[in-house]
Structure formats: structure tokens, C-alpha cells
């Protein structure tokens, strides 16, 4: 246990460091990691009007980290004239997904119903994922804003995963695993993930086994993707603050040990 005062000191230190480095705009360009490059190249080389599925499988609380990633990928997809079927397997991701799709579609002049569609939220994600392998329109008879799915132009050319090139799942937890484990083996669906940095390691086994195509992870992944795309955003913006917070944690670990060894040698002498 550490004293309350030490805690306050640690907390205020973090707050000040992050705030300052966020205000001072320092530019940091980092080399894209292989995973980000792989993801970028995949979307870059897809032929125009290919249909991809984008699933917002996260909660509102993960927005600061997920949004820069999803924005970058959605912009990229729309820029390359891919068509997007959006949905959410997390209730809280629903409004977020709809808003992000509309925002990026607006920037690039895409039309709802033709270039993209948002199907909304389905609880019981496993059943939803399996069901879409048979028929997407059965799982989502209506889109998010209440149009009948079979009347939407984009949905007329989609029946199940056979018409979807890749599923991109933005997740702050294990929802992507369900895409991998249920849409993967049974329906041969390719899956890509946009993840919070914390989740990256838990997906390593799936990357290694090839069940997951690629990952764009954390603010750093977003920043790298933004660089590849040639459009800076929140990912780039946040990198200095994240780096300084990171350095601060390293400093705290070292400081903790210095204090520990000093006390120990003092006790040893006393």
C-alpha cells in the first residue's frame, strides 16, 4: 500500500503530462507495422464496388481508441469505392456505427442504400453470426432506420457471406473471436480486426494460425494507418500524449524500485 499523498502525486503527474503533451502539437511519424500495412494493402487492392462488412463490436467507452481506427478504415474503403454493409453486435456500438458511417460517407459523397447500409444491432451475437451465413436478410429483415432489407439496392446483391469479401470487426473485447470462430470455419469468411491496444495480444494466436487476416490495433495502429492514407487524424494527434504517458509509467516503475532498494539498504544498515 502506498500513502494517499503519493497516489495524488502520481495521479496529478499523469494528468499534467498527458494534458500538456496533448496541447503541444508535436509531430511524430512512425513506420507502419506489418499488420497495419497488410490491412491497408488488402483494402487498397480490392476491386471497386466489392462489398465488405463492417461490424461495430464495441462499447461507447472504447470510442477514444476505436474511433480513430474505424474512421481511417471507413475513409479508406469509401475512397476506394468499396461498398459497406454495417452492423453492430454490441448495443452501444449501434448509434456510433451509424454515425461514423454517415460521417465518412458524407465526406466522400456516398449514398445510403447504394454505397452503404447500416443494419443495426442484433443481440446474441453467436446466433446472429451463424444466421448471416445462411441469410443476412433473415437476421436483419429491416435496416437500422426501418427500411425493409429486400428493398435496399445494396442488399439486393447480398444474400450471405458468399457476397461479402471480408468482415472488419471493431472490438474492445472478444466479439471478434466469435466472427473468427463462427463465421470462419463454417462459412469460410475472412475476418480483419480493429482492436484496442489491450486486446491485440489476445488475438495473436488467431493471427498466427491464420484464422484472423490482420489487425489494426490501438492509437498507434490508427496513426500508422492515417499516415498510409495520407490523412492525419486523432490517431496522429494522440500519439505524443500516449508516448509521454508511457514514459511516465516507465519512470514510475523505475522510481518505485529505487525507493524500494534505498529503503532496503537503509533497513539493512539500521
Amino acid at each position, binding site marked *: 500500500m502506498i500513502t494517499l499523498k503519493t497516489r495524488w502525486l502520481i495521479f496529478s503527474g*499523469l494528468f499534467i503530462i498527458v494534458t500538456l503533451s496533448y496541447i503541444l502539437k508535436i509531430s511524430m511519424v512512425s513506420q507502419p507495422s506489418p499488420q497495419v500495412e497488410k490491412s491497408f494493402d488488402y483494402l487498397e487492392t480490392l476491386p471497386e464496388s466489392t462489398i465488405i462488412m463492417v461490424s461495430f463490436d464495441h462499447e461507447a467507452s*472504447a470510442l*477514444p481508441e476505436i474511433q480513430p481506427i474505424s474512421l481511417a478504415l471507413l475513409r479508406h474503403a469509401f475512397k476506394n469505392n468499396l461498398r459497406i454493409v454495417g452492423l453492430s453486435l454490441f448495443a452501444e456500438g449501434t448509434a456510433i456505427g451509424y*454515425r461514423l458511417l454517415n460521417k465518412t460517407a458524407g465526406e466522400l459523397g456516398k449514398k445510403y442504400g447504394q454505397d452503404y447500409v447500416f443494419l443495426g444491432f442484433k443481440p446474441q451475437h453467436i446466433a446472429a453470426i451463424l444466421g448471416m451465413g445462411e441469410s443476412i436478410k433473415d437476421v436483419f429483415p429491416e435496416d437500422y432506420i426501418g427500411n425493409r432489407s429486400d428493398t435496399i439496392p445494396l442488399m439486393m446483391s447480398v444474400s450471405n457471406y458468399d457476397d461479402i469479401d471480408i468482415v472488419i470487426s471493431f472490438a474492445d473485447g472478444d466479439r471478434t473471436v466469435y466472427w473468427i470462430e463462427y463465421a470462419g470455419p463454417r462459412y469460410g469468411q475472412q475476418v480483419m480486426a480493429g482492436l484496442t491496444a489491450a486486446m491485440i495480444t489476445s488475438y*495473436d494466436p488467431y493471427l498466427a494460425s491464420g484464422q484472423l487476416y490482420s489487425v489494426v490495433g490501438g492509437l498507434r495502429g490508427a496513426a500508422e494507418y492515417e499516415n498510409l492514407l495520407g490523412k492525419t487524424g486523432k490517431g496522429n494527434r494522440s500519439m505524443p500524449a500516449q508516448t509521454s504517458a*508511457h*514514459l511516465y509509467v516507465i519512470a514510475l516503475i523505475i522510481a518505485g*524500485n529505487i525507493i524500494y*532498494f534505498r529503503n532496503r539498504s537503509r533497513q539493512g544498515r539500521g
Partner: protein
Amino acid sequence: MQTRVPLLICLVFGIIMFLQYFSAHPVARAIYQTVTNDWWQVIFAFTLIVGVAGYARITLKKLGQGRDVPYSLVALGGLVLMPVLALIGGTKINSPFMWAFENMLAPMQATVFSLLAFFVASASFRGFRARSIPATILLLTALIVLIGRLPLAEMISQYLPKATFWIKDYPSMAARRAILIGIGLGSMATALRVILGIERTYLKGE
């Protein structure tokens, strides 16, 4: 009767759900869908009402005793507010319900989540002291990975990011796999005992 019936149901559904896993037949899939999707969802929803009612009862009891009055009022107010807003304007985008979600609930949840940053800092300060050999290994690995993950790491040494990935992909992965294997075995054995009715903690409390 009070324990027999639940035990029997547990056994039957345990076996059915176990067997459906191995089948790709439409009937098996339909069973899976119906039980895990529709039934669970409905049972959960009813239980949710029991849970919320329990919370409301405790809070009302406090109000009655004059304890924590402002807090209890705020909690009950919030509890009533969301359904009322949903009744008034629906739950679609731009409804009052979504407004309350986006401007009250979501920011508070995100802020609680962000408290983690502070707690990571305080835990780093006290949790990584090199007290023993295992603790030193923990400390050194954490430091190497933390430094190796920095965008500046390549400037210190080109091997640092590589070492970070190596640690993650091999020794760390090996331990992680062993943990997962253990959990798989533990879960399997627990589940089997549950199905056979040997494990029946949940049936207690006559």
C-alpha cells in the same frame, strides 16, 4: 422435487447442447439457436426485472429510513428516466433517450474506464519491485516491452522492438497457451460435473 426437477433439466439440456456442437444438421443448429438465443435472452430479461426490483427495493428502503436520501433519489430518478424517455421519443438516433445516453451515460462510463490510466500508474509504482527472482523477471519483461513499444525504441536500439515481439510471440505466448489449456480443462471438468449434477452449488438454499 425441488432439486430433482432442476437436476434433470440441467442433465437433459446439458447433453442436448453438448451433442449439438458436433452436428451441422439444421435441426441441431435450430436447437442451438432457440435455446442459447431466444430462451436465454427471455429468461435473462425476466431475471433482469427481478434484479432491478431488488435494487429498487433496497433503495426505497433506504429512503424510508431517511438514509442516503439524495443519492437514492438520483439513482431512482435515473432508473425511471431512461424508460420514460424511451416511451416518449423512442430509442432511435436523435431521440431524447439517445441524447441521455450520449451526454450522460456514455461520458460517465468512458470516464470510469479512463480512471484505469491513473490506476495503471499507481500500480506500476508499487507493483513492480524486484523483491524476488520471479518479481525481477516480471519487472524486466515489463520494462523491455514498455520501452520496446515506444515509437522511439528503434532509436535506442533496432533490436529492442524485435525483442519485444520475440518475447510476446514465444516465451509469453507459451505461458499464455498453458494457462488457456488449463482453463479449458478446468472448464470442461466443471461443466461435466454440472451436467452430471455433482456440482450443484446453484441448487442450494432451501
